[in-house]
């Protein structure tokens, strides 16, 4: 009972405080956007007038006077303006208190100057200042931005609240009734912690939607009448100065208001908030919260010991992972990193584009080796062939080293482990040098035996072999060490018994050695598959995917997308796909191994 009430309380606290924050933000943003739109119209109109004036040869001073005239005629004398000219770094006109004009700009007025070339041709809304909405537009003469008009609109445009007090009252009443019901009916109570937050969020969303629909047209009409007044004043001033202006009357369309408050997004946010509230409510009302608390209070030392590792994992492993995961749903690139998440959000478009890539080229064009499925195919062939080769060589070496009475085992073992001890990029670069068509050791050896030199990197097959050879060299020592350790643990009695029973060495190998090795080799193969699947260094450094990217594997391709094409979002999606493939493999593999382990028991 008490638990149900606190569940409802905390969940609603979360939902309502969150909703108040969102609604307040949205209302503020709407008002800022509306004021900004008017400021932008004003700045653009004044810039248009100024550009025409400059083109006609009027002086900066005259243009400053004309600007003041336009603002006066349209009843916007309260707006602050500045006219900044690029040539001579001049503040040509200003009506800010205490700012004498014309004069050269001060050092701390550099941002005004920088703005001139930072502005798009049609002007821009800027971050609102403490005084009000802020916009600027460039003066353009012969296609060059020679100066700018900056407007700070001091009078604020404000629309009605997104949820009226009456509606808040109705919601409060509904909550009271439902909470009361939950008290009377304890069975329902636990579910109320789930349902109430969702319901409140839903109702809030509906109210906001309805309010937005009725008020947006009103807001727009207001904005348009202001814009028209500025426009008419500008034309009148232009006419009295003998200037002709091209273009229609500026008119704001519903996009201004629609852009100011994204009703659908607000609704989604509120629903999401409701979901979050429901989670909290459910967590408390179904007893999970108290169970967690009990666990924490009963074993405080244990949790204190685990905490550093937990925090480390969260910060170093889980956060980057989730960041990458979220990034994969955006079209983040070098050029739009600074934009908001909502601007970059593209949903599953990256995944659709990766998995739906069936452009294999052909029809006269070269084969499209950048295709995802080709790269996936190469990666799989690469992984399988490498692991097979690595295991075969490693096992072979281990069997040789395991021969009884072999002299100098320690030396052989050290030598054979060497490839593993050398950093793999050094090995990779060495092998790349060995595959050089003229000066490489391999072609020279081929020629010494009378063969023809091979152009290793010119076609798909030989280029694949270069990577395969390098990676086999790198990977067999690991398999060898694992196999050797397991071999030495095999009981000698079993071989003796087998020999007495007349088993051939071949039979001994298949029926004793291999089954004894399986528990040690299987985990080694599993990790080896993952390593090889993502073996970036060898592919990138040896063949670099030559020819034409045909020998890229998924991970090198993802690297190129991220750091050569700067498409971070797409590369993140690519990486998630790689992760999913390995996840599926891992689950499958664990099932398979646990099945064999069960058989052994």
């Amino acid at each position, binding site marked *: 009972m008490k638990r149900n009430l606190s569940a409802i309380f905390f969940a609603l606290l979360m939902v309502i405080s969150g909703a108040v924050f*969102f609604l307040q*933000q*949205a209302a503020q*943003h709407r008002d800022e*956007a509306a004021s*900004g739109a008017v400021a932008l*119209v004003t700045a653009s109109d004044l810039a248009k007038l100024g550009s025409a004036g400059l083109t006609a040869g009027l002086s900066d001073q005259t243009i400053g006077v004309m600007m003041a005239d336009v603002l006066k005629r349209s009843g916007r004398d309260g707006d602050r303006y500045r006219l900044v000219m690029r040539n001579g770094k001049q503040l040509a006109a200003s009506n800010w208190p205490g700012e004498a004009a014309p004069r050269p700009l001060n*050092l701390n007025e*550099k941002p005004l*100057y*920088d703005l001139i*070339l*930072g502005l*798009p041709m049609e002007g821009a*809304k800027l971050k609102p200042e403490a005084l009000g909405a802020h916009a600027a537009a460039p003066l353009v003469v012969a296609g060059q931005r020679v100066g700018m008009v900056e407007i700070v609109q001091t009078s604020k445009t404000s629309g009605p609240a997104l949820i009226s007090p009456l509606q808040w009252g109705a919601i409060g009443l509904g909550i009271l009734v439902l909470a009361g019901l939950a008290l009377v009916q304890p069975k329902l109570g636990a579910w109320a912690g789930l349902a109430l937050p969702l319901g409140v969020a839903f109702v809030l969303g509906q109210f906001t939607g309805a309010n937005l629909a009725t008020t947006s047209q009103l807001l727009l009409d207001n904005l348009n009448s202001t814009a028209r007044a500025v426009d008419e004043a500008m034309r009148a001033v232009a006419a009295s100065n003998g200037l002709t202006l091209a273009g229609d009357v500026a008119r704001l369309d519903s*996009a201004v208001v*629609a*852009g*100011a*408050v*994204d009703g659908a*997004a*607000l609704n*989604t*946010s509120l629903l*999401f908030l409701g979901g*979050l509230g429901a989670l909290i409510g459910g967590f408390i009302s179904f007893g999970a919260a108290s169970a967690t608390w009990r666990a924490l209070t009963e074993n405080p030392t244990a949790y204190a010991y685990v905490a550093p590792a937990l925090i480390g994992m969260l910060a170093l492993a889980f956060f980057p992972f*989730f*960041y990458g995961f*979220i990034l994969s749903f955006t*079209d983040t*690139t*070098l*050029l*739009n*990193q*600074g*934009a*908001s*998440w*909502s*601007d*970059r959000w593209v949903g599953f478009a990256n995944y659709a584009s990766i998995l739906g890539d069936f452009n294999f080229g052909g029809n006269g*064009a*070269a084969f499209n080796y*950048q295709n995802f499925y080709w790269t996936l195919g190469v990666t799989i062939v690469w992984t399988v062939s490498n692991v097979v080769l690595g295991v075969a060589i490693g096992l072979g070496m281990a069997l040789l080293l395991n021969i009884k009475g072999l002299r100098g085992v320690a030396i052989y073992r050290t030598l054979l482990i060497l490839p593993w001890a050398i950093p793999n990029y050094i090995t990779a670069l060495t092998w790349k*040098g060995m595959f*050089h*068509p*003229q*000066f490489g050791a391999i072609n020279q050896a081929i020629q010494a035996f009378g063969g023809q030199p091979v*152009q290793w990197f*010119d076609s798909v097959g030989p280029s694949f072999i270069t990577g395969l050879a390098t990676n086999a060299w790198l990977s067999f020592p690991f398999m060898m060490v694992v196999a050797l350790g397991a071999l030495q643990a095999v009981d000698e009695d079993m071989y003796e018994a087998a020999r007495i029973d007349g088993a051939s060495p071949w039979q001994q190998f298949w029926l004793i050695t291999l089954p004894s090795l399986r528990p040690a080799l299987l985990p080694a193969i599993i990790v080896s598959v993952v390593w090889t699947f993502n073996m970036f260094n060898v592919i990138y450094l040896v063949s670099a995917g030559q*020819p*034409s*990217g045909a020998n890229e594997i998924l991970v090198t391709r993802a690297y190129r997308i991220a750091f050569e*094409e*700067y*498409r971070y*979002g797409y590369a993140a999606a690519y990486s998630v796909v790689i992760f999913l493939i390995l996840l599926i493999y891992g689950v499958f593999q664990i099932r398979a191994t646990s099945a064999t382990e069960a058989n052994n028991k």
Partner: protein
Amino acid sequence: MAWRTSHGGSPTKRSFLAAGLGLSGTAILAACGKSGGPKRDALVVWHSYRGREKAALEEVAALYSAQVAGKARPVRCVGVPNDAFADKISAAVPRNKGPDLFIFSHDRMGGWVESGNTVAAIDFFLSEQDRQGFLPGMLDATTYKGVTYALPLNFKSAALIYNKRLVPSPPRTTKELVEIATKLTDKARGRFGFAYAYDDYFFHAGIANGFGGGAFNAAGDLILNDPANVAASDLVRRWRSELNLLPDDPANSLVTALFNEERAAMVMSGPWFLGEAAKDIDLGIAVLPMISEANNQPMRPWMTIEAIYLAAGTADEHEAWQFAKFLAGPQGSTIMAQKGGQLSASEAAYRVPAIANDPIISAFKAQGALAVPMPNLPEMTLVWSPADKAMKRFTKMETTSQSAWNDCQAEVQAAINALRASQAGGRA
């Protein structure tokens, strides 16, 4: 007239994502990116110099700090490894965790300007007199879309480096180059008159630019399959596959090895090559030959220009500017040239007789006058890998130059479109 909606998107949607996905921390970080950072007790300069360049920079910083003591903050130099430098700048500066100034080459500039809040414009401070202090063309490299963002410090470009014992007088035209190279080349025995990483687009660009081609035209459009680029490629293809003058698969390490073993008489490389060249070889440096096949136009290799940038959001831009100007100005550039061994981008450094009379510096300076800055457009990074691929395809006779460049043009254009599409939201 319809106004575009502002770029920020609605805060409601942003809050939804931020709250929902636990990213509020990042959102807050991003949100405070624009406000100015706290004023530190020193101007922090990030650089990736080592050895004598580092010592020279520190000397300039100490000299400046002593001159402005009491009037402005001293300068503190912080070394940052070169390979991580650009990414560190991209990550740190917009979040106000970065330096006040930094030194880096000009080719990443466009990307920094486009992603915003990374580099500050300096036109406001830059007087006509300041502009005159630089060698011609240097400021073009640090200008993006009409706005100057950095002061050039030094430049590097490829030139012709030759073994004086094998080549007494360097060729002035490609015709002479081919004549000398033909005499000295014995491919079967691994001897070459001329070697360079011809399938690396960086080195090829000198020839392509000489023909009037290049990666982008003045308007910033991609022109990889332009007839001039095809003509330049056909020339290299002729050298490599018809006249058999050039080695196969020429990595830079191979070129160095060939030169050091006196198996290559001439190479095309930059000042960095001098550090790798064997000390016992008497080498000379000359301007790259004029292209006989292109009406004796000079080769115009790409140059990279190292420049000092003002980080966006630095606490006092004018103070930061003072140091940038000092470093790039007469005193700073002379120290960097004399003690740091840099090829200065400033005129003043060449008034020192020891520098003006140095044959190696003079040769690189003469080559620099013919070189063109590598494009600083962010799209340039999309060109490298496909262009190298195209170079390999036609030099190995897999296809014609025209079709290799056609494919390359289509591939890069698609990548550029994908990159540009992400920007469609616009940036006010």
